[in-house]
């Protein structure tokens, strides 16, 4: 029926119908599709601001070469025998540094006007947070992949073969994504991007250096060794070594996955909560 009384202009917007159409909350399918939209946005931004890639590209290349030649002789006798110990350590470290950048960038992004619009839209509250994090999977992939590549170039021959290395990369990407929720939470709490950076560094440095990433645990004094053993980063490093060097899905892999799941379960809701409170 399209006939209308001539005098009455067609009312394009019908409030009653609009109210009837509303849905009480975003469904899971909506949430996933909205997250992917936000990921698309983040990837577009990444392509347009390529400097975001410098830290994920430079750090693996520089650190791998630097650590190998500086510490190789002292810790493992020579560079060749240090590489299987060190490369998984660098993978863990780079991925962690990359998740820190997630928090900093999210904070910068949240200060922009467009986030006000996201908040006013009927979308899942988690989508504006989860979207950029999903896009960051690409960065973890690049960071982990480049580290292994650089290792191979300077002589690393992973015993786990291609499949083992692939497994290690997937594990590193997953862990990076789950730990990124911690930095996302900090990002939603902190006052500025700079303070996110500062706080994240304080967390990150002890975690990566007080782990088995670069040195064997048995070389450490006993108190420190105890901390290193419970440090989740150590589990990630050990799991990465098991996969890359031995193609072995060990209990370390299980612990790492579990730790990742716990971090998501705790920090994803915290982040959303704090994001919603944010002005």
């Amino acid at each position, binding site marked *: 029926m399209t006939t209308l009384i001539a005098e009455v*202009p067609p*009312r*394009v*917007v*019908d*409030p*009653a119908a*609009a*109210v009837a*159409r*509303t*849905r*009480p*909350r*975003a469904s899971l399918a*909506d949430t996933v*599709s*909205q997250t992917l*939209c*936000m990921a*698309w*946005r983040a990837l*577009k*931004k990444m392509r*347009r*601001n390529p400097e975001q890639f410098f830290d994920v590209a430079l750090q693996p290349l520089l650190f791998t070469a630097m650590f190998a030649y500086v510490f190789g002789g002292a810790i493992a006798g020579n560079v060749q025998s240090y590489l299987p110990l060190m490369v998984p350590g660098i993978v863990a470290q780079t991925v962690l540094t990359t998740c820190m950048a997630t928090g900093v960038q999210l904070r910068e992004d949240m200060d*922009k*006007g*467009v*986030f*006000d*619009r*996201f*908040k*006013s*839209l*009927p*979308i899942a509250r988690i*989508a504006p947070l989860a979207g950029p994090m999903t896009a960051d999977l690409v960065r973890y992939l690049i960071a982990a992949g480049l580290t292994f590549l650089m290792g191979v170039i300077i002589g690393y021959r992973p015993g786990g073969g291609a499949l083992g290395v692939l497994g290690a990369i997937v594990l590193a990407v997953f862990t990076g994504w789950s730990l990124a929720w911690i930095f996302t939470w900090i990002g939603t709490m902190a006052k500025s991007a700079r303070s996110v950076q500062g706080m994240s560094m304080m967390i990150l440095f002890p975690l990566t250096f007080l782990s088995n990433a670069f040195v064997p645990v048995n070389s450490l004094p006993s108190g420190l060794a105890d901390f290193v053993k419970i440090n989740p980063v150590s589990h990630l490093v050990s799991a990465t070594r098991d996969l890359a060097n031995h193609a072995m899905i060990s209990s370390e892999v299980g612990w790492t996955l579990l730790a990742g799941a716990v971090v998501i379960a705790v920090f994803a809701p915290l982040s959303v909560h704090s994001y919603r*409170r944010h*002005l």
Partner: protein
Amino acid sequence: MTAVAAIDAVGLVKSFGGVAAVDGVDLEVRQGEIYGVLGPNGAGKTTMLKMLATLLPIDAGQARVFGVDVAGEPHRVRQLLGVTGQYASVDEDLTAAENLWLFGRLQGLRSADARATARRLLGQFGLEDAADKPIAQFSGGMRRRLDLAASLITRPPLIFLDEPTTGLDPRTRGQMWDTIRGLVADGCTVLLTTQYLDEADQLADRIAVIDRGRKVAEGTPDELKTSVGDSTLQLRLAPGADQELARGIVLRVAGAEPVLAPESGRMNVPLDTADRAADVLVGLRQAGVSITSVSVAKPTLDEVFLAITGHDTEQADEQNPTGNAAVGAGIPLEVK
């Protein structure tokens, strides 16, 4: 059957660090009207709007949008309104078309539909040539238009416009006004905040005046302006001139209570017609009251304010003789 109010808010309160930014505001916006919220910077306009738009939690009071509770069902409320802020809330790193596509997709449009809607809106807002340019190259007016376009993707029945023309040049401002009128013609309800009386005058069916988080007056633009006169005679008395004498003359000649401005010796006289200005000047001259400057102007927001809040704080218990008759009598204007 009476239609449910587009906005029905009772006793809205929002405090920041113990200071009430919005302090018990009631608001009823009818369907299909443009409702103007007028007030100076920091009066609490934006805070109130953000509460209604689910962007800020409501500390106390209750608000309903088309009958849907804002605090209880924010997700449903968000589907009923479009918000355009003081600054453009679009993504600087994306093009105009990409922005609209993204917002369409986020609200459940299929990719092709989102693209078509984006194209239609860009055409409607005269942005088709700029569709693929990064926002960074946009002028202020273009950003505002894109921002408004982004609020209209799903054709929400209620549009919030937070100072939509602040900082725009007069031509762009006029275009924005036309666009806003067009929205209402399509059946939308518009809640508009502004610092400009003329903007509220041009657009709004009804206006609420907000001061320090409270609604101090509400009425049609005509009712508001009548309360301060159609035009205002601004006088500055010479130093030493008898202020009381001048006040008496003004009262007698213009039939209106002059409003004393904060600066000493300055008074604003509300006039029902500008012609009365001459009578006042002649009266002062005959009485020997010397003046240093004189001008006749349309009432400004300042004067509406001074008149309304001045009455509110100083003359609340007195019989108000003539000046703010409309306000004092409380007939056309509802004074809190």
